[in-house]
């Protein structure tokens, strides 16, 4: 085919100057759009490499550009030839220059001839593309000839310098020259793009950012530079730096509080100062009279228009009435009682001070003991504080005890209340829609459940809720629990006539009410062992304290049983499991949710038994580890793979076990408290939601699902959307790695949408980021979607190339990503493929109508519904494992524990991105060490939280973090397509490890570590306890 173009434009320099530029191929070629390099063949001929392609499709094409004719200073003609998309082209362009005023009028003509089947197939689109390219050349020319351009590029001292300046001016300097990339103006545009289709954008006041000339930098230029540096042909397993980083290191992420919309209002909450109090009277008159206040909301007002949130618990737990605001009484300190909505955040805060609430204090239940007495019943409808009870009984426990050589009894152990306190607090912007639905921009990390909670409460259909997340400043499970605030902001927006309402939690509010990790007490533990120290049975009573409102509970009453025997091979276990509600902040899933408490318990059992029987901690573990995989636990869970002895060996080598043992002997000789401890733990990932039926047989959930969509956009760009809500785990990067490998392209050729969006149709009922699963659920969804897309692409390509599907390969060609007939130059690029479905659809076979190049894949792991009566079944798909060793010295005078060395070995099966995995391990270790040594939520007897600020709670800083030694092993999971196991939660290994090390340090003092928190105060108390010698009893029948 042939295309002809012509036109004219003006530039300000005189013809001689314009001619000098136009007639020199060395100067002219760089003006070509996406010019990448040039080599002069002779004075009139340049071999030019240009990055060609449309949108994100990339590739390099060589063009031979010859100056065919020049008549100084009025005329130049270029002839260009090159190969393109399995075809070839010839291009003639000529320029005639005429003086116009002091400047020049440039008249130009262009002719392009294309040969080859593909080009004619994409003919209609080619014309537009060519015009675009020509316009780009003209713009470049005009810029180069503009006064500014000429100032920036004075007469060249040498050619290279001239080129560099010109390139920089045009924003075409090669990546190596400008690794940083996106200038602020572009980044602002990128931010605008991120929010496109939404009702507002992050407000970037025009003057605030540095001005900078517009450049043609792509969206992910930083990431392209990273990918260039990595230079790999396989991307899964590569330690690639992240795509996400570009915006975050510039401070251009879009967190909820960064988001602003016109007319937006701000909500502030009045919270109960009492742990348990009847609300006698609320007076909002003075608050409402304050200028700038729009309205207030109270509990009774809300209860009249919405239903209480769905309860998961069985029986009378269904009668719990949980509303976004307290209705008749407040049942924990910090419970929201009144909402105030005003024109700005400061007015809302002022007005909240003017709300008068009269309370009548009620008796409180602040621990499991007082809760079980039922003197202060929190939820009258439930009639008791005993929220859940069930017995997990496997094997023949009584027989094992009857036959035991030793029985070790531990009276009580306590796992404390602690929380991962993400640095960004809960936040939401809610906008009630005129059509009756609501839009949320929020940071909930399990939005699929959040909308299933909110819709019935607000009386909405689920399709009436649009829920979107973007950058989330950490979650660690905690942000699963912020849906009551989303509902509240929605009601506030409704009352304000649909004006958007923003609510951002303060840190103090977060500590009081933002969600605490569950507290658990272990009573009357008895352990049966044979004569070699092999554990044969355990029985105990466990009591969980979930705070005032169960919300996600009692799921924690079953989730721990995913790791029932921990890493150990005992077959006889009976746990009487209970959960109570207390007048404390509501519990929330928190990193290691429900499993870490149980794993800590099991590790304490191991160490306490080892101590009691005088067996070293490492030998005790080796005697009891599960060793064959897949391993079916007594309750039917299947541990996919692992090698705990190997991890122990590696950890010992890493930390230098033998040297530390020597040092320990010396230190002990000097009377120092010096201990070495081991912790082995599991991070079970990809839940079978069927386990929810074990806590309540009437629940409708089972299995698991995650969704990904993948499409070729109109220009052939590969676009992926996810159902997950990453908050730092790098899903954009790992997804790009997987897609790149599947399609034989580069990760920077894959656009991965940020965040969750119900409107993107890329979510299912389990979508979100929780329970260590993305590498399995998320990436399996992505992988599945890729397979379907590839099938469609092959069908189209086979037709277009008149080839057999089996002869096609996915690769990168001159025109970017393409399918090619193996061993030939015949290929079709993504743009042309997309055109066949989107813009150039005539003349195709009838059966192509099923092809959309827009795929939605739902991954569903092969789970069965558990046996509810026996509490048995496969509850999780993968079991990542961790083994840590710590060396700790406790100061004899101050009781301050100091970590002298720390090693962590991780096994999460096949690693997708080693950098990201190591980062997750580091983070989990910091949370664990913080929780083991200092981070505790402490209540006084009246239910006042004593740790309601960061200053009191003291989250771990760089000063108290030891330097970590880290290594891994890979035991691929047989249950995931990629051999990966979900990871990230980390199983609370440092809690187990530090308890063990301190136990070892204080071994000579008869102290048994029975609490998961070991602050100096706790250790001082443990050392002073009168019963410290009698806390553990050993009954031995032999030896």
């Amino acid at each position, binding site marked *: 085919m042939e295309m002809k173009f012509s036109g004219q434009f003006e530039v300000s320099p005189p013809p001689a100057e314009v001619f000098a530029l136009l007639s020199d191929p060395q100067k002219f070629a760089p003006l070509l759009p996406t010019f990448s390099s040039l080599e002069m063949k002779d004075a009139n001929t340049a071999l030019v490499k240009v990055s060609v392609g449309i949108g994100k499709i990339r590739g390099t094409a060589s063009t031979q550009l010859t100056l065919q004719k020049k008549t100084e200073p009025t005329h130049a003609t270029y002839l260009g030839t090159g190969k393109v998309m399995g075809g070839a082209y010839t291009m003639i362009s000529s320029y005639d220059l005429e003086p116009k005023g002091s400047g020049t009028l440039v008249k130009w003509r262009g002719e392009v001839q294309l040969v080859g089947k593909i080009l004619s197939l994409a003919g209609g689109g080619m014309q537009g593309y060519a015009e675009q390219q020509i316009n780009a050349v003209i713009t470049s020319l005009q810029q180069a000839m503009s006064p500014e351009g000429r100032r920036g590029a004075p007469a060249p001292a040498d050619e290279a310098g001239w080129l560099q300046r010109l390139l920089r001016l045009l924003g075409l300097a090669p990546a190596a020259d400008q690794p*940083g990339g996106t200038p602020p103006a572009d980044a602002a545009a990128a931010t605008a793009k991120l929010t496109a289709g939404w009702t507002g954008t992050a407000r970037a006041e025009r003057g605030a950012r540095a001005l900078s000339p517009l450049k043609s930098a792509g969206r992910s230029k930083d990431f392209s530079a990273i990918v260039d540096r990595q230079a790999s042909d396989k991307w899964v397993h590569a330690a690639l730096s992240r795509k996400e980083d570009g915006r975050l*290191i510039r401070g251009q992420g879009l967190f909820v509080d960064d988001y602003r919309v016109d007319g937006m209002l701000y909500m502030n909450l009045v919270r109960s100062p009492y742990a348990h109090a009847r609300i006698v009277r609320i007076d909002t008159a003075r608050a409402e009279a304050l200028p700038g206040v729009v309205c207030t909301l109270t509990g009774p007002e809300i209860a009249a228009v919405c239903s209480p949130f769905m309860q998961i618990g069985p029986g009378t737990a269904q009668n719990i009435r949980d509303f976004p605001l307290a209705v008749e009484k407040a049942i924990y300190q910090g419970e929201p009682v009144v909402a105030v909505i005003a024109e700005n955040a400061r007015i809302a805060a002022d007005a909240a001070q003017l709300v008068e609430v009269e309370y009548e204090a009620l008796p409180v239940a602040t621990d499991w003991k007082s809760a079980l007495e039922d003197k202060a019943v929190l939820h009258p409808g439930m009639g008791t504080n005993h929220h859940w009870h069930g017995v997990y009984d496997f094997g023949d426990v009584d027989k094992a005890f009857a036959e035991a050589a030793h029985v070790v009894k531990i009276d009580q152990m306590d796992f404390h209340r602690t929380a991962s306190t993400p640095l960004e607090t809960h936040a939401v912007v809610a906008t009630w829609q005129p059509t009756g639905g609501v839009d949320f921009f929020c940071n909930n990390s399990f939005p699929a459940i959040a909308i299933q909670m909110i819709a019935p409460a607000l009386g909405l259909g689920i399709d009436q809720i649009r829920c979107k997340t973007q950058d989330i400043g950490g979650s660690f499970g905690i942000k699963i629990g912020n849906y009551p605030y989303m509902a509240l902001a929605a009601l506030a927006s409704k009352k304000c006539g649909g004006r958007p309402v923003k609510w951002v939690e303060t840190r103090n509010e977060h500590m009081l009410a933002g969600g605490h990790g569950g507290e658990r007490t272990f009573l009357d533990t008895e352990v049966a062992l044979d004569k070699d120290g092999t554990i044969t049975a355990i029985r105990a009573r466990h009591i969980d304290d979930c705070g005032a409102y169960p919300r996600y509970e009692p799921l924690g009453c079953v989730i721990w049983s995913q790791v029932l025997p921990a890493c150990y091979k005992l077959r006889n276990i009976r746990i009487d499991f209970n959960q109570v509600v207390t007048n404390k902040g509501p519990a929330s899933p928190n990193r290691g949710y429900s499993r870490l408490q149980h794993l800590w318990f099991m590790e304490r059992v191991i160490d306490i038994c080892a101590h009691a029987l005088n067996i070293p901690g490492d030998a005790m573990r080796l005697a009891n580890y599960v060793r064959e995989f897949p391993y079916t636990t007594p309750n039917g869970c299947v541990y996919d793979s692992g090698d705990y002895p190997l991890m122990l060996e590696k950890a010992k080598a890493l930390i230098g076990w033998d040297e530390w043992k020597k040092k320990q002997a010396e230190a002990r000789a000097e009377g120092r408290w010096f201990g070495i401890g081991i912790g082995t733990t599991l991070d079970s990932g990809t839940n079978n939601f069927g386990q929810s039926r074990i806590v309540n047989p009437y629940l409708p959930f089972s299995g698991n699902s995650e969704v990904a969509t993948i499409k070729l956009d109109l220009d052939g760009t590969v676009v992926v959307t996810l159902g997950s809500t990453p908050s*730092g785990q790098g899903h954009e990067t790992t997804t790009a790695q997987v897609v790149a490998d599947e399609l034989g392209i580069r990760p920077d050729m894959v656009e991965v949408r940020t965040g969750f969006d119900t409107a993107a149709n890329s979510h299912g009922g389990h979508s979100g980021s929780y329970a260590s699963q993305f590498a399995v659920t998320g990436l399996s969804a992505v992988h599945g979607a890729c397979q379907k897309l590839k099938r469609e692409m092959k069908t189209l390509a086979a037709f277009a190339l008149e080839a057999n599907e089996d002869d096609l390969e996915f690769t990168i060609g001159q025109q970017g990503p393409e399918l090619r007939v193996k061993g030939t130059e015949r290929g079709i690029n993504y743009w042309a493929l997309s055109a066949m479905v989107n813009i150039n659809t005539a003349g195709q076979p009838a059966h192509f109508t099923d092809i959309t190049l827009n795929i939605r894949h739902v991954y569903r792991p092969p789970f069965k519904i558990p046996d509810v009566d026996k509490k048995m079944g496969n509850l999780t798909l993968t079991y990542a494992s961790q083994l840590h060793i710590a060396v700790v010295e406790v100061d004899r005078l101050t009781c301050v524990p100091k970590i002298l060395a720390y090693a962590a070995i991780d096994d999460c099966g096949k690693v997708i991105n080693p950098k990201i995995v190591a980062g997750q391990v580091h983070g989990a270790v910091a949370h664990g060490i913080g929780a083991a040594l200092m981070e505790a939520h402490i209540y006084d007897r009246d239910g006042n939280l004593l740790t309601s600020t960061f200053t009191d709670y003291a*989250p771990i800083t760089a*000063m108290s973090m030891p330097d970590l030694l880290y290594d891994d092993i890979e035991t691929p999971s047989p249950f995931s397509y990629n051999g990966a196991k979900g990871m990230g939660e980390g199983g609370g290994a440092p809690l187990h490890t530090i308890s063990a090390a301190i136990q070892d340090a204080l071994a000579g003092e008869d102290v048994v570590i029975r609490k998961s928190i070991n602050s100096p105060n706790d250790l001082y108390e443990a050392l002073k306890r009168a019963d410290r010698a009698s806390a553990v009893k050993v009954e031995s029948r032999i030896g």
Partner: protein
Amino acid sequence: MSTPDAIPPVTIELTVNGRKYCREVEPRLLLVEFLREELGLTGTHIGCDTSYCGACTVQLNGAPIKSCTLFAVQADGGEVLTVEGLEQDGELHPLQKSFSEHHGLQCGYCTPGMLMSAHALLAGNPGADRKAIKKAIAGNVCRCTGYQNILKAIEAVANDAGEGK
């Protein structure tokens, strides 16, 4: 409780990332609120209310400060540098590159504050050692990274400086 509009606004003039601003502000407006709300510089974050976390760290006249602990009026006449001012002429600051290269950020919420603390440290002590780096970021909380890679990222830039690069 007096109403806010009873207190007259104050006019302040300050330079932020090299640009001069003159604004009328409520005397109680915090510097962090001024930067985020008045100037739209939302890279500076808020993570606590007791000056503990450092998510709000910016530089005032070259010194790292917690902008949640200063009123905007206290910065009157001063020069403020925020994370948005680190990139110069499209060139990222070596610390920004190093944070990405060493995976010194996950959620990215603490990152701007970390960068500003580190930047202030290296301005005064370009070859800072690990101990000095730990001290410099002792007032910056990161809940995601366990600090390991943040220290590595800052150390890498300090080492480069140490080698006279």
